[in-house]
């Protein structure tokens, strides 16, 4: 089943090749300053329609944060993403466990799951809006179905990666089926599940934003669309910055939880994991 092979091995968390030297750090700061200067210069020369200005974006962002407007919309988007994420991920992780002793059912389901994984779930956005309205439910549903298939295959890979020797060892020591499931199958699958969670996280926020772009009256996607319709580029940029921050927040959270739960993992060799 090559389509889900990409989630086969529990890829380690991203490791930077080497700590950048002081010189490299200096270069990076320089690049940032240069980019900001170009941006500011551009806005002075050609006006703020095209890209706003760094100063404009910064001030609008600050006022938006201070009066709570940004946080209100951001929390709406975040709620959609998190709720959808949980509703999609929990059953998806549980299903391979439940079906562990019924490989025939897993085999029967396989082409449907592969089809669901390969199908463009985000293309269902208008359908969900048709069904659930422009409120929060359509966004949650979209996120949930996107996340579900990703996490299902990760959990499946985790269950399949079971080390039979460990199971034998436990059985010799008197472990029951439930003991094996609880102490060996589940902890062994957790790294794989987390790989799936890490992959699915950006999709959850992206899905929420896309649905909001199409039709919504709250949320960061709505703010982006609102800004665009009013030709308010600065507003669009502010909303984009907020959206990106949420993505980083989500990434950080998943990584933090993973680090805590997976302290037992041997450190990976120098590998570059590439994410979307």
């Amino acid at each position, binding site marked *: 089943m090559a389509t889900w092979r990409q989630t086969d091995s529990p890829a380690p968390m991203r490791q930077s090749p080497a700590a950048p030297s002081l010189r490299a750090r200096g270069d990076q700061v320089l690049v940032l300053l240069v980019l900001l200067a170009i941006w500011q210069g551009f806005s002075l020369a050609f006006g703020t329609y095209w890209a706003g200005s760094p100063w404009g974006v910064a001030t609008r962002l600050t006022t938006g944060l201070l009066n709570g407007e940004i946080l209100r919309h951001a929390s709406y988007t975040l709620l959609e993403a998190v709720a959808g994420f949980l509703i999609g991920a929990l059953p998806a992780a549980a299903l391979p466990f439940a079906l562990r002793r019924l490989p025939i059912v897993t085999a029967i389901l396989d082409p449907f799951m592969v*089809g669901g994984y390969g199908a463009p779930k*985000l293309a269902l956005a208008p359908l969900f809006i048709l069904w659930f309205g422009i409120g929060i439910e359509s966004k949650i549903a979209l996120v949930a179905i996107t996340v579900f298939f990703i996490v299902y295959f990760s959990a499946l890979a985790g269950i399949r990666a079971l080390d039979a020797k460990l199971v*034998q060892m436990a059985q010799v020591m008197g472990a029951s089926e439930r003991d094996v499931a609880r102490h060996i199958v589940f902890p062994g699958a957790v790294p794989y599940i987390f790989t799936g969670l890490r992959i699915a996280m950006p999709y959850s926020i992206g899905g929420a934003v*896309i649905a909001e772009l199409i039709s919504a009256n709250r949320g960061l996607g709505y703010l982006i669309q609102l800004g*665009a319709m009013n030709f308010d580029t600065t507003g669009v940029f502010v909303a984009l910055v907020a959206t990106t921050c949420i993505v980083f927040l989500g990434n950080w959270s998943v990584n933090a939880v993973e680090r805590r739960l997976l302290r037992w993992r041997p450190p990976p060799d120098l590998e570059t994991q590439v994410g979307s």
Partner: protein
Amino acid sequence: MTSHEAAVDVPEPARSRWRPHVVVAGRIGLAVLLLIAWKVGADAAGPLYAADPVKVFERIVGDTLSGSLLRHIYVTLRLSAIGFAIGCFCGVALPFVLRRLPRLTRAVEPYIMASVGVPKYALVPLFILWFGIDDAPKLWLVGLLVFYPVFIAVFAGIRNVDRRLIAMARVVGASEAAISREVVWNSLLPFFFAALKIALPRAVSAAIIGEFLVGNEGLGYMIEHSRQSFDTTGVFTGVVVATALVLVINAVLERIDRRLNAWRPVERDMQV
């Protein structure tokens, strides 16, 4: 010496003889069940929320015969193809350029990695502001969504090229260009193909979603326009066709991938 049988897990031989048939029968059964559920659900939910499968089928046939469906599909695919080509080209070219400029690469790398976190779909309204309401914003979307996985795969692939091979090539007197061509390119080929396999369906997906937001042709336009006109059958039709299209593309890519990699003794899977 390891034991070949974990006796507690070996299935009876008799059972395994029937298994493939049971699985196939189960799959067909499940498919039929889903179709029946669709019909029943459509009848129960009413024409506003759900479209009758028979009507969807009739619409597909009708639109195909009238040519409008094929036109929408063509528009979407054309968009995907052009965007794919652009994104692919940039995704491959940029790492090779950066390879010659290591200092610049180190300086720019964190920003590139940070930009991965920006949800590209969220940029579409901005693109509309910048590039108008024709194909341009959609091309940018598709291009970006293709660019990132390809760029990351090629970039990481170049980084991971065996330095000894490069050193050997230098010793033999190869020019930098020749090294790029022979050693580097061939080493990262499998990673590049893995990224392509992901990027191509994504390109089609992105085109469709772009069409939700702007434009007046294409599968995405068809779906969203139907929604706004409360034409539920149209929505279902569009979704079915779009899903089928992407699944077919996936299947074809899978075939090609297997054919290309048939000779490979060790499968190299890279997380993209």
